[in-house]
């Protein structure tokens, strides 16, 4: 059991350190950090007190405690993935709205001030360019 203990604690501490550093550099928002800190907490708890796991397995009638652990972990990851998909969908909807607004604002601007306004080379995002885009150099501007 000692190896479980060391692995669990080391993993937990490492994860916490990474989370903390990401929070410090503002690469991670608190609302997303909370769930992972909770996960770390549970992991460390199970590593330090393995009997909590066995007890929970007994309580739920799971014969092999590790299976309960796997089940829990998989369910948790599933839920988090779904949550992330949801967030991405919301962001896509927002960027879509912004993109539409930007194009209309630009059109409005050009109509009022003439297209002669200093034309910045188009920043067409090529990252998602569909496959049949031959990658022509920007012809605008």
């Amino acid at each position, binding site marked *: 059991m000692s190896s479980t203990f060391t692995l669990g604690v080391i993993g937990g501490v490492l994860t916490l350190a990474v989370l903390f550093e990401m929070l410090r550099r503002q690469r991670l928002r608190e609302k997303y950090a909370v769930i992972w800190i909770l996960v770390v907490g549970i992991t460390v708890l199970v590593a330090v007190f393995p009997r909590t796991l066995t007890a929970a397995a007994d309580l739920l009638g799971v014969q092999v405690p590790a299976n309960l652990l796997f089940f829990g972990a998989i369910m948790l990851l599933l839920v988090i993935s779904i949550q992330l998909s949801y967030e991405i969908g919301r962001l896509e909807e927002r960027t*879509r709205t912004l993109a539409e607004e930007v194009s209309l604002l630009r059109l409005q601007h050009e109509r009022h001030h003439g297209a002669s306004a200093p034309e910045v080379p188009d920043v067409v995002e090529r990252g998602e360019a569909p496959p049949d885009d031959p990658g022509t150099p920007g012809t605008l501007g």
Partner: protein
Amino acid sequence: MPERRDQRILVVIPAWNEAGVIASTIAEIMAARPDVDLLVVDDGSGDSTADVAEAAGALVARLPYNLGVGGAMRTGYRYALREGYDVVVQIDADGQHDPRYLTELVRGLDEADVVVGARFAGTGTYRASGPRRWAMWLLAKVLSRLAGVRLTDVTSGFRAANRRAVTVFADHYPAEYLGDTVESLVIALRVGCTVHQLPVEMRPRTVGQASQSTLRATLYLARAVVALGLALVRRWPSATETLGQEKS
């Protein structure tokens, strides 16, 4: 008497990498109806579509990246609403929609909020087969039932919308697969708009072609079923509440 004189009509052309044909499409529309305004929504093209369209005399809204037809069209509807147009007509950039039908479509708005130019309604020679045909049949059946009138070609991108429908579409025009055609019609019907169709003849596309392989057609069928099913049960929390909110 073609239509009410005071009607302001905006033709919206969603265009993505159509530099080759967009100029002739614009010229044709202008020749058919010199009185309408033309807005090309450049959907993040990598080629010179926007410049060509501008040179041809159309207004051009440039999307910073590719959003799909749904995104391009919602941009158009928003523009129309803000600028106070009474009618929006969608015409594809590739020249398969004959602008001679434009007047008929707009006239159809006397009796409906949305008028779709349909390929299978008697005119023209367009034929589909296999799973693609079943998909179109299924979509047409369900939409017809919903609309209360017979619709045969619900995936047509040739359509006219009056102010009422434009108000809805300015807020809710899905960017997802089949969202710009099928789901948008479902949305219109579910918020109480009426949808009619008019037979139109469509020309073969000048560039590119619809995929016809069986595998792709089957995939199309599956996606159509999913898209339609979702469209029917989906909630639009603000679909009716925000009507007109777009007005600036």
